[in-house]
């Protein structure tokens, strides 16, 4: 099949044509007036600009907390963001509900109406398209903080940016690898080119919107080289469409040396590849540390606090500009306002105490992990560029088909799924099955040795079942899984 999507900026005329179709998808599309929206964006104070807020944190040596906030009814959402800002939050990521994420605005509308009628939230996020620009500006104007829509489709992004939200977290690999079942990477990149082009349109007119990137987030314990390679691809795609501010979102798997190594590696490689492809004016205001593994079971309140505080501690030691900590209700369901406040009070305690100390440190192993991951990422990117004959988009699409990029437990039928990760004896993530990943032989050997070491220590072969045990480990207060019994 011929690949139609390429690494190329969408012409302005074509883009404006595409927008008409997008805006027609739901009546609130009519509320978007692009020139007025740019002016509105430019009139916003620095405290509402995602990039400015992040740069301020960097300058002040602070680590800011990213919450996750999305509840269907506008009044409740406003009350929630007020609680958040009172807890010291300055970035507000607004989770959009699952129907809206799949452009099923009619379903979202019915559920929203039922939520309002019954007083019970029937949606797992804020239906931004249904609310439209006027309403969402009320939300944005309700507090001094920068807003970011999570999981916005094209129309949702139009509304979010016109409403004064100043970030756009839209990673084609995140969509492809975690949210989609049949959609191909090509379709996901095409969609992200639109939202990035929109962001670029604002940027060309002096309104800087930040794109935050996830790369391909694995569903489980898995080394992060695939993730990082894909994050770099996402960044190049965004930059080509005119995005001027990129914030990488790294995922902590819980092993300090690895997590810190990845936090150091990501901005370094991003800068290098952006420069190499000519996107020297793209800014990287900071890095966001996210926590990946399963959260403690809902019954374990002590474990929940420990996990979120541990994540805060690692982010603070690594001097990340922001950290995405979950609430103590993470395992139970969408958090209450009280859970948000309590959880961020706790994380903020750690962040303040650690950052004030201005700790400089070296952990054994960080260097090795950084080097190993770097070699893997470069090998993957080389292979993609080879497959795409220099076009990173084409290369990535072919790469996924060939399993050069791969991930375990993926929901998407277009993913090979021939790879698997487990933890080694100290909790570091290692490849157990390499599938078709283009990992150099000596690095493969490194992973195999680490795996053999655990096999000797535990007197058993590591396999799929161990990968599942490791998936649950952190949630149960360990970093390495233990046999769950026959």
């Amino acid at each position, binding site marked *: 099949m011929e690949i139609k999507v390429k690494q190329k900026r969408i012409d302005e005329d074509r883009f404006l044509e595409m927008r008409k179709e997008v805006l027609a998808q739901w009546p609130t599309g009519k509320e978007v007036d692009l020139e007025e929206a740019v002016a509105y964006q430019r009139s916003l104070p620095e405290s509402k600009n995602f990039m400015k807020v992040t740069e301020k944190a960097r300058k002040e040596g602070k680590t800011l907390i990213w919450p996750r906030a999305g509840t269907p009814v506008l009044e409740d959402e406003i009350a929630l963001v007020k609680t958040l800002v009172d807890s010291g939050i300055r970035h507000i990521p607004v989770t959009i509900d699952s129907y809206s994420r799949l452009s099923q605005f009619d379903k979202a509308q019915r559920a929203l109406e039922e939520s309002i009628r019954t007083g019970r*939230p029937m949606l797992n996020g804020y239906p931004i398209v249904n609310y439209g620009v006027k309403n969402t500006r009320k939300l944005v104007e309700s507090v001094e903080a920068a807003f970011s829509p999570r999981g916005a489709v094209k129309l949702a992004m139009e509304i979010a940016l016109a409403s004064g939200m100043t970030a756009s977290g839209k990673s084609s690999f995140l969509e492809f690898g975690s949210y989609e079942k049949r959609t191909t990477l090509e379709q996901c990149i095409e969609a992200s080119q639109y939202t990035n082009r929109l962001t670029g349109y604002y940027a060309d007119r002096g309104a800087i919107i930040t794109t935050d990137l996830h790369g391909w987030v694995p569903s489980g314990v898995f080394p992060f080289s695939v993730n990082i390679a894909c994050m770099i691809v996402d960044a190049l795609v965004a930059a080509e469409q005119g995005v001027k501010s990129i914030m990488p979102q790294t995922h902590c798997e819980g092993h300090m040396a690895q997590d810190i190594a990845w936090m150091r590696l990501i901005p370094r490689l991003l800068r290098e590849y952006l420069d190499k492809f000519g996107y020297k004016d793209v800014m990287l205001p900071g890095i966001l540390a996210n926590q990946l593994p399963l959260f403690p079971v809902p019954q374990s309140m002590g474990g929940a606090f420990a996990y979120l505080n541990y994540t805060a501690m690692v982010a603070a030691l690594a001097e990340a500009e922001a950290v995405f900590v979950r609430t103590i209700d993470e395992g*139970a369901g969408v958090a209450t306002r009280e859970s948000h406040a309590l959880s961020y009070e706790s994380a903020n305690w750690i962040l303040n105490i650690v950052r004030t100390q201005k700790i400089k440190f070296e952990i054994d192993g960080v260097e090795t992990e950084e080097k190993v991951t770097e070699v893997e990422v470069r090998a993957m990117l080389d292979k993609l560029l080879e497959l795409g004959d220099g076009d990173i988009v084409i290369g990535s699409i072919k790469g996924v088909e060939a399993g050069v990029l791969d991930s375990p437990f993926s929901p998407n039928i277009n993913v090979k799924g021939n790879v698997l990760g487990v933890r080694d004896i100290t909790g570091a993530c290692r490849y157990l099955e390499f599938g078709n990943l283009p990992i150099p032989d000596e690095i493969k050997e490194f992973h195999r040795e680490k795996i053999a070491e655990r096999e000797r220590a535990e007197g058993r072969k590591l396999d799929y079942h161990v990968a599942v045990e490791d998936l649950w480990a952190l949630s149960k207060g360990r970093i390495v899984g233990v046999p769950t019994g026959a």
Partner: protein
Amino acid sequence: MKKQPAVITGTVGMDAHVIGTKILSRALKDAGFNVVELGMQVPPEEFIEVTQKTKADAILISSLYGMAELDLRGFKEKCKEAGLKDVILYIGGVLGVGRQDFKEVEKKFKKLGFDKVYPPEANLKSVIEDLWNDLRAQGKA
């Protein structure tokens, strides 16, 4: 020996949380079931169609995203209309938005026609035992 029982798995509606249903499916296979794995975001109608086609004995639905109730209103009735009044219905995951009282959740989904309802992170060994028992009660195992 009876024939190998057939079961259908998947997440319903727009739910993208596929890890649980994948692990469940593998455990069911390891336990000797014939598993038709539909993966994520399966419309209720698809569960019914595939059950008719495969003559499966049970449907095991996952949902974590909190909107299962909306997705599954009238599901049992539709099963009956499709001639599947005996198909065993299980559901598991995070079955509402926000921290829930599991007893309430269980009541709600039993009323919707589910035979068994499981809390998040249910133990798969006992799930599989329950399933064998329910199949035996229908003379199917």
